[in-house]
């Protein structure tokens, strides 16, 4: 009886994950469409042609594509780290010290989601423009001597956009993890003579590591596929992420096979990173327990 409860989940997974994934493979290894361009999906695996993967891997290891992957990785790593730096204190405060304002604060964290992501990014375009508020404020407080051109292919602008766009996703699982920690455990540490800092590092932080892990994975995955942040806040090839190249290939028609192959390569790339990451975190938490 119990295993049958998993049926809806399994169905969901097959219909909405495995089938589309198979379709991506079929397009990546499909035959060229003689009329409409792009690739006709090859549904029969015997007809699969891996030529597109050869091209992509060639560009990855000998061409410029490798740098785009590296850039994407660096952006995502920095943005995730910054999100954690910003998100952890917020989640900590809301979970442990916000008192009766908890619900209100949580609402406020989610509030940006009521506005469309594109709208929020377009708002940043205005804020960051040469005579926008960001420059005006920085000039006023004396941090800048002259207006800074934020929107002309600056790495920091794209990373800022990523952090801004995804940080709430990180706060929520962190909040849940921190909220679950039994406060008596921390009180016990303090009773036994630990300083507040020691209690935090020896008790709270390890106990919230699962939340950190979940939060990081949740923000990293969409960041790897993100294409519109860099498109809107920069538009320069200097700051393009892999997602942008995929978008371009797929939207323009002729490149749908190429775009699908690139999607698979990105998936494998992220998959390897995530496996390593999950493995090392799991090992760290095992060691912390023992």
């Amino acid at each position, binding site marked *: 009886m119990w295993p049958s409860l998993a049926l809806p989940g399994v169905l969901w997974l097959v219909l909405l994950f495995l089938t589309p994934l198979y379709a991506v493979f079929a397009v990546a290894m499909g035959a*060229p469409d003689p*009329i409409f361009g792009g690739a006709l999906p090859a549904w029969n695996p015997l*007809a699969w*042609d891996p*030529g597109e993967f050869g091209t992509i891997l060639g560009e990855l290891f000998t*061409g410029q594509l490798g740098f785009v992957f590296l850039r994407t990785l660096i952006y995502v790593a920095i943005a995730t780290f910054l999100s954690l730096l910003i998100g952890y204190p917020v989640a900590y405060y809301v979970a442990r010290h916000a008192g009766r304002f908890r619900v209100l604060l949580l609402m406020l964290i989610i509030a940006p989601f009521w506005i469309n992501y594109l709208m929020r990014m377009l708002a940043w375009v205005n804020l960051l423009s040469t005579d926008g508020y960001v420059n005006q404020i920085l000039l006023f407080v004396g941090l800048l001597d002259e207006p800074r051109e934020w929107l002309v292919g600056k790495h920091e602008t794209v990373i800022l956009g990523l952090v801004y766009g995804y940080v709430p996703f990180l706060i929520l699982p962190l909040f849940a993890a921190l909220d679950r920690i039994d406060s008596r455990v921390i009180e016990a540490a303090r009773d036994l003579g630990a300083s507040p800092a020691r209690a935090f590092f020896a008790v709270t932080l390890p106990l919230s590591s699962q939340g950190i892990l979940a939060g990081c994975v949740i923000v990293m995955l969409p960041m790897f596929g993100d294409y519109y942040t860099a498109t809107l806040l920069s*538009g320069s090839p200097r700051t393009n992420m892999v997602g942008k190249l995929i978008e*371009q290939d797929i939207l323009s028609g002729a490149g749908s096979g190429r775009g699908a192959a690139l999607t698979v390569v990105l998936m494998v790339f992220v998959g390897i990173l995530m496996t390593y990451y999950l493995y090392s975190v799991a090992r760290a938490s095992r060691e912390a327990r023992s």
Partner: protein
Amino acid sequence: MAFHPRERSPWRRTMSRREALRLIAGTAAAGGLLAGCGSTPGSSSAPRLVIGTRENPVEQPLFDDRQSIDSGLEPEEGPLRVYNWADYINPAVLKGFTQRFGSEVEVTTFYNSQEAAQKLRTGKISFDVFFPTQDDLPKYVAGKLLQPLNHDYLPNLQKNVWPTLVDPFYDRHSRYTAPYVTYSTGIGWRTDVVSVDVAGMENPWDVFWDPEYRGVTGLYDEYRDALSVGMYRSGITSVNDAKPSDLEKARDNLLELPDLMDIRYTIDGAYSRLPEGNLGLAQAWSGDTLLAIQYVPEGRDPSVLRYLWPPKATQDRVGGMISNDCMAVLANAERPVLAHAFINYVLDTKVALENMSWLGYQPPQKSLDPTSMVDRGLVPETLATAVVAQEDFEMGQITTQLTPEEDSSWQETWSRVQQGG
């Protein structure tokens, strides 16, 4: 790379294998799920792309199973279903049609041509009127997605439209299409940012490589438009071919831009970022330039905006693209008579003007030329250069469809440009 990797598999050229694939795709589609990415309906009779050029005009092929409607029929009951680009028709025009014919108009929008093609090819969705670009027409005809027009329902076509586009090179005798709007692709700039005399330059496209305008320059985030600027920079005008040396030249030229110019590839550069002052110099479709006037922030001066189409400014010495969009009736339209009525309605001069006042893009109406449009106050004098005249279609390069192989080469080059470095 000497040839495209897809050409390496010999079996691709054999028909039997492809048919086997289609069979498999058909079986899969029976499940309903995969239909969205499945086979082309009715493409069994060896369809072929018929691509015309200005020098070699073509008639698009007719098919026995794609007949036009008979004359003298009454328009069907609505609603009329229109499949169009987003924000590409004045809502007041739709309202006017409803008042006149008593049929509601439902507009469904697509974001790009690829998305439109994919949806239409499923054969599962039925629209009546469709708005393809001129250069995409051959594939829609070959894919048998359109039905021939019956000109008895379209008196306004002969009466109002430029003769060049009543009998256009891409679709002689307007078998499948009526022209919708025209546009050229040129250079837009603000006089308060750009001081150089762009029109007086030996090659106006060179302005995109002038480091004086570093940080304020933008090109379209669209592969054919952007890469063509890379070609025009080197004096190459074969923008409808895919000669490897031309594409390499274009690529190398564009790869200079990120560092030299802090170039930005955007789609809203000409109509939004330029009037807002976010950019000072941008590649621009003429229609975007006319639309830009509406985007100038309140209190700012719209007369700083300028537009230039290099072929016209240099007596056709320097290249530049010009094209038009079309209206067509889909093969599986449920209300084909009403669809014809709609196309004829949009070709009415008054309606066309009402449409342009909102859209910015210009219908190819006989009564409209740069002088008359400035006189009527439709276009400020400073932007008269953004008005397309019939004779402009004799100049520059008219965008035509690339074959799938050529298109792939362009796409690969563009991807390389976007990788930077």
